């Protein structure tokens, strides 16, 4: 019953293109017979899911079969940054610095969450359609220890040109300092158009890297030279840190610190099971129409599938953590009615297209009650409004829904089902 890998299929999914990357090829295969992901990998993936940064390729979904892990990643359509160099030669210092700013921001953000890249190289630097840098495969190298033990596989995988000397020496290393080194090589390549350390003979290359004797081309400014020298320091303990890079004069030119991203509502449920949390994309798109609900999504709401009813008789009279109602009004009307209803109930509303986040202003038994709601189009004349408790107490959600639905009674056509909300 294993899913056969079908590498690189691209599907359009609700106005957003995402790419299924079967990490099959990256050594992500679990040993046969392992039914679930080992704990560590699960934790690592959960951390990756929390990474939300404008310059990091986002992990949308995680799924697992018996033998493989599937990750649905943000689809980045602008190609690789290094194609630019291949096509048009080296970059000017200002342009290179702009990419370097974004790279350092991304790396700094991930480090602050305990995620190291360990394999920063040109293939992992992508550009989106607006030309913004997107670093991909953050955290993934942690999953391929087999590749490291097997020297053959390792060298066959790619060039070690971007790898820090202490990593090559394989003495156990600090992921932070190693990532900084790779950023330095990348900066050099952007401005020089060639690698600082390069030799067709692997042993010679290793020696060049270990010695770290870098000579910058004449067109590098003094500021750039100084920074690169401090980054390409073979001793990881004396190598410049990201905090120090942020203070560097050359770096600071035209530097705009990144805006912080909110990740309060990231769902990790799919890491355990599978859960749709494709909400909250970084790029806020304006949409004319609500997301349409496909036929299978509608079917999956049948009470006939709700086998939970077999288990807890006492659960049946209660409202669940999520509920929905149907309406024949236009989505705009529904949205504004919901907004109106929230005021008297003491709820704050945050709106994005046809999704809203409602947050109670009183602290309840388990903190603020918060509710996510979204309008879906079933047909042009029929909309489904879903409400899901995202925080707070379930009983409070129950009573909220009761008040809420009575405020909305002129737009509610049918509620979810007859077995709940009594």
């Amino acid at each position, binding site marked *: 019953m294993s899913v056969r890998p079908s590498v690189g299929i691209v599907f359009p999914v609700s106005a957003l293109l995402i790419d299924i990357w079967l990490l099959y090829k990256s050594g992500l295969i679990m040993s046969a017979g392992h039914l679930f992901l080992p704990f560590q990998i699960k934790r690592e993936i959960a951390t990756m899911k929390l990474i939300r940064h404008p310059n990091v390729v986002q992990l949308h979904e995680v799924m697992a079969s018996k033998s493989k892990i599937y990750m649905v990643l943000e689809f980045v359509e602008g190609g690789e940054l290094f194609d630019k160099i291949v096509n048009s030669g080296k970059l000017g210092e200002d342009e290179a610095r702009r990419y370097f700013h974004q790279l350092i921001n991304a790396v700094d953000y991930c480090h602050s969450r305990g995620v190291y890249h360990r394999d920063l190289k040109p293939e992992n630097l992508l550009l989106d359609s607006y030309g913004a840098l997107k670093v991909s495969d953050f955290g993934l190298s942690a999953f391929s220890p087999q590749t490291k033990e097997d020297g053959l596989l390792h060298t066959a995988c790619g060039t070690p040109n971007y790898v820090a000397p202490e990593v090559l020496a394989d003495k156990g290393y600090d992921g932070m300092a190693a990532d900084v080194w790779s950023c330095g090589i990348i900066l050099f390549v952007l401005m020089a158009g060639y690698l600082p350390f390069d030799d067709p003979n692997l042993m010679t290359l290793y020696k060049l890297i270990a010695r770290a004797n870098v000579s910058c081309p004449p067109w590098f400014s003094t500021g750039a030279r100084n920074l690169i020298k401090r980054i390409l320091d073979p001793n990881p303990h004396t190598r410049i840190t990201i905090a120090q890079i942020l203070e560097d004069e050359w770096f600071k030119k035209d530097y705009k610190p990144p805006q912080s991203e909110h990740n309060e509502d990231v769902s990790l449920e799919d890491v355990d099971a599978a*859960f749709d949390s494709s909400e909250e994309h970084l790029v806020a798109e304006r949409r004319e129409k609500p997301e349409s609900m496909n036929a299978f999504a509608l079917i*999956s709401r049948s009470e*006939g599938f709700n086998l939970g009813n077999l288990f807890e008789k006492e659960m049946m009279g209660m409202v669940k953590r999520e509920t929905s109602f149907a309406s024949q009004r236009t989505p705009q009307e529904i949205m504004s009615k919901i907004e109106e209803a929230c005021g008297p109930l003491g709820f704050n509303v945050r709106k994005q297209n046809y999704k809203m986040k409602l947050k109670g202003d009183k602290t309840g038994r388990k903190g603020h009650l918060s509710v996510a709601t979204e309008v879906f189009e079933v047909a042009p004349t029929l909309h489904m409004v879903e409400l899901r408790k995202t925080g707070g107490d379930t009983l409070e959600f129950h009573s909220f829904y009761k008040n809420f639905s009575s405020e909305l009674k002129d737009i509610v056509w049918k509620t979810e089902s007859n077995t709940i909300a009594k």
Partner: protein
Amino acid sequence: MGCASSKQFKRAPRHGDAALLAKETTFSLDEVKALYELFEKISYSIFKDGLIHKEEFQLALFRNSNRKNLFADRIFDLFDMKRNGVIEFDEFVRSLQFFHPDTPMADKIAFAFRLYDLRGTGSIEREELKEMVLAILNESDLLLSDDAVEQMVDQTFKEADLNGDGRIDPDEWKAFTSMNPALLKYMTLPYLK
């Protein structure tokens, strides 16, 4: 007749049978025993023969033994692996494991595929999807024009039937559910853990 009795549990499952089920499913021995209690409650609710009949299943699910529902029928039919019109304990446990939180997604995807492949042809046809859409609309008392239903089925097929042959085959289904994992939320019961 020795081997026939191992298929049916007239009384509490013998230790050996429960252990075998625990070995061959996601459940532990204690969980199998707990499931037996549940099974017993359901299977003795009307006919008192230690087998779950359709009416008993509907009673447990809807608290109404007469409530007909296409989707409950499908679940019942898949649980009834031997196709003899009743669910035995062995079938109950083996089928419920698809709903276990630790069961691999691929197995759940395959189970859902069989649910929706109403006529068992190995693919989900347009007609089958339409039949299911009409059933869910009917179940929820929602009215939609035939045009709107057709449109919805067309749209879903456009997304799921990648090669456009008018049928959703298992590979297309895997791809579709992988992109829409929320479709299979009902396949995971937290109670089982």
